């Protein structure tokens, strides 16, 4: 057992245990906080798997933004903080679906990736970029891949963000008073 493997196992156990807590705790806020632990542990796993950039993105976006957003949503919607509203009669069915999906994925992934070792010394070109990256998964190689090979995908992503922004304004924005007067002056045409 190498030290990396020990760390990876510890983080994996932490991920699974906190994920179980997320779905089993009756408090919604506690569930959100347990989610921080889960996502943070996943970030640790990424780090052990040499994906340092993805690890920090995971911390920034998921722990930093998504969970905070979730907590804000809970706060603003005044959802009951200590009820077990999520339990329903569907629970056994949901458990069955969850466990069978887990089983299928576990079989597929272990049979697919068993025995594959990431060789850090031979520097295989896995990112599809023109030049082989110095190291897999570090920020520099990810950056180069994004701005050469994946440049179109990257630019189109900004279009999604703009569309989402406009959409959010459309569904939530109120018409300003000045516009109201203008529209009224126009006789509703």
């Amino acid at each position, binding site marked *: 057992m190498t030290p990396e493997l020990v760390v990876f196992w510890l983080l994996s156990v932490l991920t699974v245990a906190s994920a179980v807590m997320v779905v089993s705790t009756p408090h919604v806020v506690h569930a959100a906080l347990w989610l921080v632990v889960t996502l943070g542990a996943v970030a640790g796993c990424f780090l052990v798997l040499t994906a340092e950039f993805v690890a920090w993105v995971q911390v920034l976006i998921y722990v930093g933004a998504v969970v905070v957003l979730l907590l804000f949503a809970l706060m603003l919607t005044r959802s009951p903080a200590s009820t077990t509203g999520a339990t329903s009669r569907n629970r056994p069915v949901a458990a069955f679906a969850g466990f069978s999906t887990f089983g299928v994925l576990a079989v597929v992934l272990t049979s*697919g990736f068993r025995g594959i070792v990431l060789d850090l010394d031979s520097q295989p070109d896995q990112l599809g970029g023109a030049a082989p990256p110095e190291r897999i998964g570090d920020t520099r190689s990810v950056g180069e891949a994004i701005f050469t090979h994946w440049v179109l995908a990257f630019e189109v992503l900004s279009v999604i963000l703009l569309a989402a922004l406009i959409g959010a304004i459309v569904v939530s924005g109120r018409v300003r008073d000045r516009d109201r007067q203008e529209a009224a002056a126009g006789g509703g045409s």
Partner: protein
Amino acid sequence: MNEFIAPTVEYAELSPLLIVLGAAVVGVTLEAFLPRRGRHRIQVVFTLVALVAALLATGWVAAGLDEVEGASGRGLIAAEGAIAVDGPSVFMWGVLLVFSIISVMLFAERRIEGGVSAFAGQAAALPGTEAEREASRQGIEHTEVFPLVLFAIGGMLLFPASNDLLTMFIALEVLSLPLYLLCGLARRRRLISQEAAMKYFLLGAFSSAFFVYGIALVYGYAGSFTLADIHAAVDNNTGSTNLLLAGMGLIAVGLLFKVSAAPFHAWTPDVYQGAPTPVTGFMAACTKLAAFGALLRVFYVAFGGAQWDWRPMIWVVAALTMAIGAVVALTQSDIKRMLAYSSIAHAGFLLVGFAGAYGGDGITSLQSVLFYLAAYGFSTIGAFAVVMLVRDPGGEATHLSRWAGLGKTSPLVAGVFAFFMLAFAGIPLTSGFTSKWTVFSAAWAGGAWPLVLLAVGMSAVAAYFYVRVIVLMFFSDPVVDGPTVSVPSLFTSSALVVAVVATVVLGILPGPVLDLAQQAGAFVR
């Protein structure tokens, strides 16, 4: 450390896509700076001009495509391998843009609502509140729908042309996100509209998750996102077959959801019913075309070598889709839900063509599906445009019983609708017959004859409910206080004329468009 090499992007070949997305961004800016009063008119004109420009650019790109050496297709791989600008892509771009122009004309219709568009005056105002009444009294409306629909069209142009799975996923999101929003913006019956948007959003997010998980597994199998590399990996049989099968299955779930194939069709009736009718027509024609294009590209190009693995799955899905679409449509009493089930049934017929996977002489499966999509889109936009016109005081009269005797009170509108129904049913001399004929013959040539027999049977079942509507309109007595038929503005009437003419021409003289589809040739890797 090695030097940074700037990527090359073939701007000229991508011009249709760039025009549409650029126009969407400019449209957002217009929204911010124009005074509210003239905004609607300017946005409509601007959107239509942009779409026509993109259509012209598509024609120019199509004329300049080069033959690919050693392959049967024409075209090139652009933007660092992200987009395949080939014959099928260009054909789909052209058809998509034509459908978009007609749909935007329906979006722009204001006369039948009495001076306002079919979209909610103020989406943030709760249904039934004073704020909502205030907004509609003052004629406030959301002109943001035009930039949003341009974003969706941009995503649809990119989706079937993407040459790697990552770009395809991003395109899927670009086309879906604006659609989720547009579904929730109906002016009338806002609660079911919002419910539709919510349902579409949640289920769409699930299907996207399936899709991206499939991409991850296929990446694990092939070590690449690019379709050509995946094809090579499948041919050389590298990696674990389990990963490939699971990945293919999950990618299929994501794509079959978008084409509304059973058993992933459950959202279709609710969303088609709840969404504003112009949006429904747009989705039924354009989303279906883009999603089928992507489905064909992924499965023919990337997984072509594994077709003995996926064809049984598509056979089952196709049979199920046709059966559910045709049989459940019989029980519907709402015209929009009935058209939604009809759209599911047509997805089944298209899947029959897809399952044939015939690539030999004559019309290939790909070309027949492209032709079917073009023919079906015109009729479906036309049918939804007619639904917009038949109105009660509270909005569209979508209950079937309200349509009784419409042929006696307004024979022209009822006649046009009956004509579209005949086209859906596949009666000769309409586009529905020629398109069904090409798809089924390609599937037969590909050895899928049991499926073709089932498809013909299901066409007969489907014809029953289409004819039932015609009988209801022409041979029943009109209801007392029946719905009125609004006189539309030039936008809707010209859209309807285009739809009718296209349905007639594709039925009587399918040659030119069929030639175009044949010239589209095959996908380029």
